[in-house]
């Protein structure tokens, strides 16, 4: 009997070692010098919005198809001016010569002038080394890199978890990934080209994410990479992309590990930028003051925890519990956490975990007859798949999101549902909407880069300060120093009677 026991014990050791191996990429990502202080969007610069003030948020702009407060859609002729000249005259020097500022807000950003007036200064951070320890050097000046670009096609790689602790349904992801580009092709594409999407499952594992990103860059020869979700995976791939000179876009996640990367751009607010909104949501919109903060125990989220703590304290909220739970928390851990939340008396739980952890925590809390209001930053916990699996335990959970839910999209972008029905078939879903939105952002950026597209012209266009307005994702603008260029988010609320999220505020910059 002893021999098989030893074999099994060895197998268990290997399994644990494999799990621990996932941490290596996390360590890499946090090896970068962290900003001394994280500044987020200045709460004082925000105004009430959401359903109460639709004029500010664009929620009532459905009649015209363009939300109030949003910049007009970019026209193709505008970006073409800067294309070629930018590519040769201004290669990707911005971030490396002048490192990005954490938490600094962009100009405009789809806000009313009063909202956009405040630009919060924050400390500069040194440029960060890549995961292999190399400095994040841009392509040499004058060297134009057109990898992934042909006369007809621009290849773009997307990574997302379709397995692991935060899974996206792959069929939904596959169905939606080309809808925007097929819709655009009918309108002539981008200077005659269209985008071809290459997709890889990152398994919610940063090591695997780097592997698939490298594969997309080196074998598939993609022009740019997009990270759909997962802070550690985005951080790991973002750092790899920077070390390879590949443009990288993602929804806003952590800033640590991404600040200062020469090719990284967040298309929505980071967790730190969302922290003041969440504190305002708790105090001003929900009207509760006892708050608990629960965050996945990964180093990449240390800064998010600090930002959420600071924002809550600044608004005078009483933080009754501030805890971290394992990325793959056990039933025992989640039950224990739920019980401690209950005994803490928290009325609101500000949660930043994977959907699996969130749902299991909510279920365990419900089993303890404890039903707080859950709030949290985007992206994944506001997806309908979470409401489908998590209701009724998640109650009327409210999450910020870079994209609205399906109930609001007709007002903001009436093209989505018809295009989905035409090119994907079936009922449109919010995962397709997320893809539609980020692809639309990419479209605007590619247009801005001009006809003579290269990685250098693309990065130069992004760093130019131009606003990219899609009316789906928040308007963003960047510079060589600002890579977290969004100022607004949508607010979603779970409707457990329908097992879906609904949109309760669009393009909100404060509550």
């Amino acid at each position, binding site marked *: *009997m*002893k*021999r*098989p*026991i030893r*074999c*099994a*014990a060895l*197998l*268990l050791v290997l*399994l*644990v070692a494999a799990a621990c191996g996932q941490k290596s990429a996390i360590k890499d990502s946090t090896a970068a010098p962290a900003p001394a202080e994280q500044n987020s969007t200045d709460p004082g610069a925000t105004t009430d919005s959401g359903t109460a003030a639709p004029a500010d948020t664009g929620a009532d702009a459905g009649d015209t198809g363009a939300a109030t407060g949003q910049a007009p859609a970019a026209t193709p002729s505008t970006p073409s001016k800067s294309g070629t000249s930018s590519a040769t005259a201004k290669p990707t020097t911005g971030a490396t010569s002048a490192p990005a500022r954490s938490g600094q807000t962009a100009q405009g950003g789809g806000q009313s002038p009063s909202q956009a007036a405040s630009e919060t200064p924050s400390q500069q951070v040194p440029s960060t080394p890549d995961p292999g320890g190399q400095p994040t050097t841009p392509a040499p000046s004058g060297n134009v890199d057109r990898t992934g670009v042909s006369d007809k096609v621009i290849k773009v790689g997307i990574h997302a978890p*379709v*397995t*692991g602790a935060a*899974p*996206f*349904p*792959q*069929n*939904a992801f596959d169905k939606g990934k080309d809808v925007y580009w097929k819709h655009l092709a009918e309108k002539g594409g981008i200077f005659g080209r269209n985008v071809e999407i290459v997709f890889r499952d990152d398994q919610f594992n940063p090591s695997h994410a780097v592997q698939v990103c490298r594969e997309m860059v080196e074998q598939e020869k993609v022009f740019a990479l997009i990270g759909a979700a997962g802070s550690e995976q985005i951080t790991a791939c973002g750092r790899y992309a920077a070390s390879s000179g590949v443009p990288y876009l993602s929804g806003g996640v952590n800033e640590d590990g991404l600040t200062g990367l020469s090719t990284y751009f967040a298309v929505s607010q980071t967790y730190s930028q969302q922290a003041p909104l969440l504190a305002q949501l708790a105090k001003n919109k929900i009207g509760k003051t006892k708050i608990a903060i629960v965050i996945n*125990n990964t180093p990449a989220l240390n800064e998010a925890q600090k930002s959420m703590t600071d924002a809550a304290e600044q608004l005078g909220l009483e933080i009754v519990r501030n*805890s*971290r739970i*394992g990325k*793959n928390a*056990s*039933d*025992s*851990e989640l*039950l*224990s*956490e739920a*019980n*401690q939340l209950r*005994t803490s008396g928290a009325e609101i739980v500000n949660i930043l975990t994977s*959907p*699996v952890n969130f*749902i*299991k925590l909510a*279920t*365990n809390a*419900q*089993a*303890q*007859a404890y039903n707080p209001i859950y709030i949290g930053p985007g992206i994944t916990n506001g997806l309908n*798949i*979470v409401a*489908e*699996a*998590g*209701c009724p*335990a998640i109650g009327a959970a409210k999450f910020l999101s870079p994209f609205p839910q399906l109930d609001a999209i007709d007002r903001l972008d009436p093209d989505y549902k018809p295009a989905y029905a035409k090119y994907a078939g079936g009922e449109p879903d919010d995962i397709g909407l997320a893809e539609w939105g980020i692809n639309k952002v990419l479209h605007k950026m590619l247009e801005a880069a001009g006809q003579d597209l290269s990685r250098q012209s693309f990065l130069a266009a992004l760093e130019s300060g131009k606003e990219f307005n899609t009316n789906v994702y928040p308007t963003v603008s960047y510079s060589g120093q600002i890579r977290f260029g969004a100022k607004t988010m949508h607010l979603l609320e779970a409707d457990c009677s329908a*097992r879906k999220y609904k949109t309760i505020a669009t393009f909100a910059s404060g509550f």
Partner: protein
Amino acid sequence: VTEVLAHRGALIGTAVALAAVLGLVASGSEQALVIGLITGAGYGLVALGLVLIYKSSGVFNFAQGEFGTVAVYALWAAHVNGVPYVLAIVLALLAAGAMGLVTERVIIRPLFDAPRVTLLVATAGVSLLAIGVEIWLGEARLRFIQPALGRFDRLSVLGIKVSDQRMLILATLIVLAIGLGLFFSRTNLGLAILAVSQEPTATELMGISVRRLSSFVWCLAAVLGGLGGVLTAGVVQNFGPSFITTSTLIPAFTAAVLGGMTSLPGAFVGGVVVGIVQAFAIGEPAFSHIPGQGTLAVFLLLIGVLAIRPQGLLGKAA
């Protein structure tokens, strides 16, 4: 004295349990006892199936978790299509039993004479295949599933509310551990299964069909795994591909090894011990800065027990 020495494992286990209980109460961590007991019961339920297979054939069955997951999928599919919950559970257990039979017939039986390590790897392959099929057919999305018993607040122990579903798991585990223990010690079929595991050739010569018994054991273990799956899924109310394998299999293996691998009551004890150690490590503020402290504590416990008492708390030395 001989009698006492024969039950040395049980005595050690009891002493360890008492010491743990006293320690937890003294340190003000008594809630970890309750949390450990009710979460450990889930581990123990899966561990029962592992022990059953090991006891009868000497195989570490890495597919045990997937017997449970497949049963959960079957329960969900039946229930969302209008089948009453109780009948859906029966169908789920039948599905798990069928998977166990197919695994035995297609994978285990052709490898019957192969080294046990080969069978271990083969069961891991079955598990990976099942996970792949689950993702292929059902996507990697979480799905909601109702508990068999929906009331949460009937019982409160030391400040922890114990839902009816968790009580059901605990009761099921106790009944099964005792019932299977009696089955193996008091019935001809149980004794025949034990005989097959110890001396298959002699058992065959006695007119007992080794292969038929193997099918029976795998089917029974799969049904146990299925029962663990459907009851556990009712607690967390959602599931996805590899649900039991990722959430329960490793703690269940630990529980089985702690309990002695051949002891069915040991699976129960092991599950509870794993649950309590995990809950204590998680709830103790002194360990809060250690990521994965619960898993680490269980792992250290496993190493400690294997070093001091390789046959486990209630197992018998080979």
